[in-house]
């Protein structure tokens, strides 16, 4: 398939998935037992107040009408109004998105900076102590939960050593601990994947040729093996970015990082459903977008993918 029809097919599939995702979130919030009006006003509110609020929120209309109104709003990027802040959800999201993007980018860069040398070294010195050390780190990094790593890092680097701020994002250096918390798991997964992918590639004929013509082991690894071993890792990064966004919910909460994730937890605690809905849909949209772009990047790099 040529690139352009492929891109059109992938993008329309992504739009269909997002439509389904919006429907799922709508059903989730509207069909689950528990009345948002009760939650907002409390059990003791007067019946007249309840009805007034119900009408103001459009909750008195039949479900299908609410659904259509919701979709019509989404099409115009209107995500409703926050119940606690009385502001459009879209403008709150716009405020809280940049910090999350900064944190996610920093974590990804950090993960790559750790994973690439680790994966290369582990593959180069397979079954030696470097390999064991790298894979030991990988096992630990996958197993350590970020809601434990985060507090530990705060304890050591903020409270005991005083090197970094405890929370927030105003002070210089406040990005370091959240990025480490969020990036460690990703670094562990990527290092392991890169090592295994490299080892698979290293058995191929063209690697033997490169060695036979006298290239050093380092050059073979860096110039020949890495380029081919890179592709599965690229796909994994796309998929893992989702884990990164989901992990941001917990990490941002720990460090009071003012992003989408901490907004979501605040909104859940305040039972501010339009904001909860907005944050989930934004994260899902980002995730679907990244994966669609990864797919397309993959296809443009590797002609073999386009053939299928």
């Amino acid at each position: 398939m040529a690139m352009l029809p492929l891109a059109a097919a992938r993008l329309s599939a992504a739009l269909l998935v997002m439509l389904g995702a919006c429907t799922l979130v709508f059903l989730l919030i509207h069909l689950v037992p528990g009345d948002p009006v009760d939650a907002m006003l409390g059990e003791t509110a007067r019946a007249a107040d309840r009805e007034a609020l119900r009408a103001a929120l459009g909750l008195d209309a039949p479900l299908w009408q609410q659904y259509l109104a919701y979709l019509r709003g989404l099409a115009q990027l209107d995500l409703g109004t926050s119940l606690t802040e009385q502001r459009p959800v879209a403008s709150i999201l716009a405020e809280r998105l940049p910090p999350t993007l900064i944190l996610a980018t920093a974590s990804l860069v950090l993960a790559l900076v750790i994973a690439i040398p680790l994966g290369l070294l582990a593959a180069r010195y397979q079954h030696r102590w470097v390999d064991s050390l790298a894979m030991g780190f990988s096992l630990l990094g996958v197993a350590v939960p970020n809601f434990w790593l985060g507090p530990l890092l705060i304890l050591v680097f903020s409270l005991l050593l005083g090197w970094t701020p405890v929370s927030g994002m105003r002070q210089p250096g406040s990005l370091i601990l959240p990025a480490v918390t969020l990036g460690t798991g990703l670094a562990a997964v990527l290092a392991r994947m890169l090592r295994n992918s490299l080892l698979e590639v290293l058995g191929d004929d063209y690697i033997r040729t490169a060695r036979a013509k006298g290239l050093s082991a380092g050059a073979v690894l860096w110039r020949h093996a890495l380029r081919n071993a890179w592709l599965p890792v690229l796909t994994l990064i796309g998929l893992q970015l989702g884990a990164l966004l989901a992990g941001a919910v917990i990490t941002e909460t720990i460090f009071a990082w003012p992003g989408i994730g901490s907004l979501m937890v605040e909104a859940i605690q305040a039972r501010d459903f339009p904001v909860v809905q907005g944050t989930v849909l934004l994260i899902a949209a980002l995730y679907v977008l990244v994966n669609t772009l990864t797919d397309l990047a993959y296809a443009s790099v590797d002609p073999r993918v386009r053939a299928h």
Partner: protein
Amino acid sequence: MRWLLPAGILLLWALAALIGPELPLTPNQIDLPQILRGPTLLQPLGTDDLGRPVLDRLIVGSRTSFLVALSVVSVSLVIGVLIGGLAGYAGGWLDLATVRLIDVFLAFPGILLAIVLAGVLGPGLDNLIIALAAVGWVGYARLTRAQILSLRRRDHVLAARALAVPAHRILVRHLLPLAAAPLIVEASFGIASVVVAEAGLSFLGLGIQPPAASWGSMIRDGVAYMLVSPHLVLAPGLALLLVVLAVNLAGDRLRDRLDVRG
């Protein structure tokens, strides 16, 4: 030998969870003169901010994580195998609809949907299990469907169909046994992710409610006293780390043993 460490940890976890209620524990006994004590002979892991023994709460918490992991993985597995198996075997529009549904669920990364569901449903053990299972079935459904698709043209299945064996019998007797190995491996890794997810939701205050204990809520409560009493955060976190590590190691071994690619 490579089984020994993970098996030992998992055994200890299961044992603590199962015989915990029989032990003379006082996980909820508030003892204000004894708050934030470090480890002593009587209280090997010290006490928390309400003077409750941390070891007792750790053991009760192991029961929470064990029960949640077991029920979520088994419910998810049954639902996933049912949906994935039917879709893969029936094919046609049913399969197409299932694939679309799975794609929609996969648009929500990790435990994101479970966080929202737990938030909407409200806290509590039952709701926690519902929220995690509602998200957990997807992976098993996808895997089962893929397995069934690759197996349904095998000779023994065609033979069974030629003999007019009913579809549900073919699925249960001739297809699922062959698809079992990858599902078992997936489920074993699934235990680790549910343990982390339970603790994560409880850490966010969306899971187990006080005074019941979860390793996640113990970490959450301990964070405020970290500088004075780091053991409040260290103990439950270490327990969590060891269990997840053991499950992952055991899953790796199982995968090698059952010869599943992954």
